[in-house]
């Protein structure tokens, strides 16, 4: 089965600083999703990437999928307290669209 490794496991960033989260797979990613989760709540959809080399941005968040489609990164520019939470990457299982396998998550803390 496909394993998704997220790094770092957690990070503390000062408000206004940038941060990057990585998501790596041992197999080709057919669909890569980024979500944000506040503690104990549902998942907020951020972005979905499908094509090698694809890059998407929304407000201060940018996600990229490398050409080999085995690694994705999520970059937040000039972090704000609202960016705090757990960030999860998910990927379609190779044999079935829509069934997602998730990484362990990255907890982001933004300090004043």
């Amino acid at each position: 089965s496909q394993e998704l490794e997220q790094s770092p496991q957690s990070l503390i960033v000062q408000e206004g600083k940038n941060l990057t989260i990585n998501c790596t797979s041992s197999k080709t990613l057919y669909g890569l999703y980024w979500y944000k989760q506040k503690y104990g709540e549902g998942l907020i959809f951020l972005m979905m990437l499908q094509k090698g080399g694809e890059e998407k941005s929304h407000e201060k968040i940018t996600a990229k999928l490398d050409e080999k489609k085995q690694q994705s990164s999520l970059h937040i520019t000039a972090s704000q307290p609202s960016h705090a939470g757990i960030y999860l990457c998910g990927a379609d299982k190779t044999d079935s669209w829509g069934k997602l396998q998730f990484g362990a998550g990255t907890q982001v803390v933004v300090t004043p």
Partner: protein
Amino acid sequence: SAVISQKPSRDICQRGTSLTIQCQVDSQVTMMFWYRQQPGQSLTLIATANQGSEATYESGFVIDKFPISRPNLTFSTLTVSNMSPEDSSIYLCSVGVRGLEQYFGPGTRLTVT
């Protein structure tokens, strides 16, 4: 996008009882899924809720423990049967449109005592 609601939002149940969780979507969707998130863990797919046929379960999950219904294209239920403390988790439904985004409901936080 899709707006998804779940009921109940949280519940505390006794060991040995069952709880049915409802998932309602504001538009017709082909694919609906149920996930579990155990404390401190990431999400694990339980099953695909198929409209008009039996749900498809992932390895480690069985119909007797997690019966699922999907009577139409906007609604599904997940029942957690004969609960034990190990079933304490957040249960989330998700919907997807082929080739596009997948959205998650707000989750149901279940505590089994």
